[in-house]
């Protein structure tokens, strides 16, 4: 599969949006060369504020700008804004429902060598817990551009999680993202894998392997974690009778927990979960870590086989 950087796409999309809307303002905490907000900063220096290493302050500044009519994008690494600033996100943005878009990079363990301090694996549980937040994890660069545009044009708090490494392109050019809607990226009738982010490409790989073994596996990308596309989950449960959820996140509070709530209430079927479990990872190359912690196409395929047996 061809690959592209979601971060670079983010920076370029911001510039595009900045040209259309003079009320778009961007904040970063000394990481703009990494988050790629630097591209926006070069074109619109007056509307870019490097807040230095004052992340908690940055979230409050964003709230003040948003309360004054700005559409504010806030970027740094996931751990520094979601984990460090949870109380600020809660009281300054979620509770007053302000128009702030947290677009954070370096999600998951594919951050790699920097180690567990930098691995963002709790963020989906935290942000999905915030009332009024919309939470999006794009599967590739094309979906990233679409999601960032959707965040700009829909009022209210957003969290978008991006990755450090380049990610495989899952979608054709011209793909149109609809906020809150799942996308069936591969049809199938024996089981469904529901995935987000980098796990979508892995799920497609797994489906190819399973097809050779006679299992016809559906793959659904669920870019919007909140609000969740319940109808797509119920349909998949009804039509395929088994669901595997794959995410680069801890077991608790992410996509798996959210899908399971819908399945148990509306259409109970056997489920399996591919995630990090309940542990921190270590330093290593991204691909090495995905292998070590059970987040490969092979792991997904194994889970599908075992869930199909339970039907």
């Amino acid at each position: 599969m061809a690959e592209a950087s979601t971060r670079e796409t983010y920076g370029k999309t911001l510039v595009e949006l900045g040209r259309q809307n003079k009320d778009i303002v961007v904040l970063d905490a000394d990481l703009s060369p990494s988050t790629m907000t630097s591209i926006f900063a070069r074109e619109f220096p007056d509307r870019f504020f490097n807040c230095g290493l004052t992340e908690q302050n940055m979230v409050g500044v964003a709230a003040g700008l948003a309360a004054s009519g700005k559409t504010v994008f806030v970027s740094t690494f996931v751990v520094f804004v979601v984990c460090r600033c949870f109380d600020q996100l809660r009281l300054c943005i979620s509770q007053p429902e302000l128009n702030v878009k947290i677009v954070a990079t370096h999600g998951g363990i594919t951050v790699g060598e920097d180690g567990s301090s930098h691995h963002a694996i709790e963020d989906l549980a935290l942000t999905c817990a915030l009332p009024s937040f919309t939470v999006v994890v794009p599967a590739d660069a094309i979906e990233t551009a679409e999601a960032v545009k959707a965040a700009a044009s829909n009022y209210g708090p957003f969290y978008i999680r991006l990755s450090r490494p380049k990610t495989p392109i899952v979608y054709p050019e011209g793909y149109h993202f609809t906020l809150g809607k799942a996308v069936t990226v591969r049809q199938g009738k024996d089981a469904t894998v529901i995935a987000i982010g980098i796990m979508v490409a892995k799920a497609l790989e797994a489906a190819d392997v399973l097809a050779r073994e006679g299992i016809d596996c559906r793959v659904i990308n669920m870019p919007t974690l909140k609000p969740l596309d319940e109808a797509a989950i119920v349909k998949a449960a009804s039509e395929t009778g088994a669901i595997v959820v794959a995410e680069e996140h801890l077991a608790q509070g992410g996509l798996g927990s959210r899908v399971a709530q819908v399945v148990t209430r509306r259409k109970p079927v056997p489920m399996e979960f591919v995630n990090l479990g309940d542990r921190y990872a270590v330093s290593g190359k991204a691909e090495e870590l995905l292998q070590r912690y059970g987040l490969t196409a092979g792991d997904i395929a194994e889970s599908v086989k075992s869930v199909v047996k339970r039907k």
Partner: protein
Amino acid sequence: MAKKLRRHVIAMTATAGSGHPGGSLSAADIITALYFKVLRHDPENPQWPERDRFILSKGHAAPILYAALAEAGYFPVAELATLRKLDSRLQGHTDKKFTPGVEMSAGSLGMGLSFAIGVALAARLDSKTYRTYVLLSDGECEEGQTWEAALSAAHFKLDNLTAIVDYNGMQLSGWVRDIMNLEPFTRKWQAFGWHSLDIDGHDFKQILSACQGAEKIKGKPTVIVARTIKGRGVSFMENNVVFHGKAPTWEEAERALKELE
């Protein structure tokens, strides 16, 4: 007017049976000066784009802000009696979503100055002339975020921003100097790049002249360290830590209201 607002604080918290009278009374003169002399605002039009912004960072002093907003005409004075009650617009701590005239939700300390920086930056971006005022408690200057914000406001040269610290010297469990000493306090702000001055926070003239003086300072934000007395105006509440977060009983309220006649 300040006395009237103090009476409201006593009646409101006694009626609610909970709340924070001490820090509301210490801020009464500052709030009165702001709402009835300093701020350009329009109670008929709380979202007037040109209005001066007032941000209450010490959200537990909500009763004194509500009292001022009601007397200024943002909502009926009778509504003050609904403080902290189910379905009231007057939440226990300030809540932007419910109350006309409340600019920011607060209650977790140390967040207001950052919010005020965003508001002041927006004024600069939009070439607006409104000023942004923010009231902090001394206790919340123990929060790291306050100092992150202090750095930022000076870095961004926000001369359209005035911070006022209600320095009553007490926090929930005792004297600030014993719990987490802030001194030398005014010099800290100076070192962070602020124009800073000390005043008596119960002297109306000093408050007004400090606020007016701040408008003339260019290239840096101003902090007014207002030395105050917690519980000011009610003898048995003054410098009495018990009334940080405890409402007066009816009997105490009656005595307090008599003193405030």
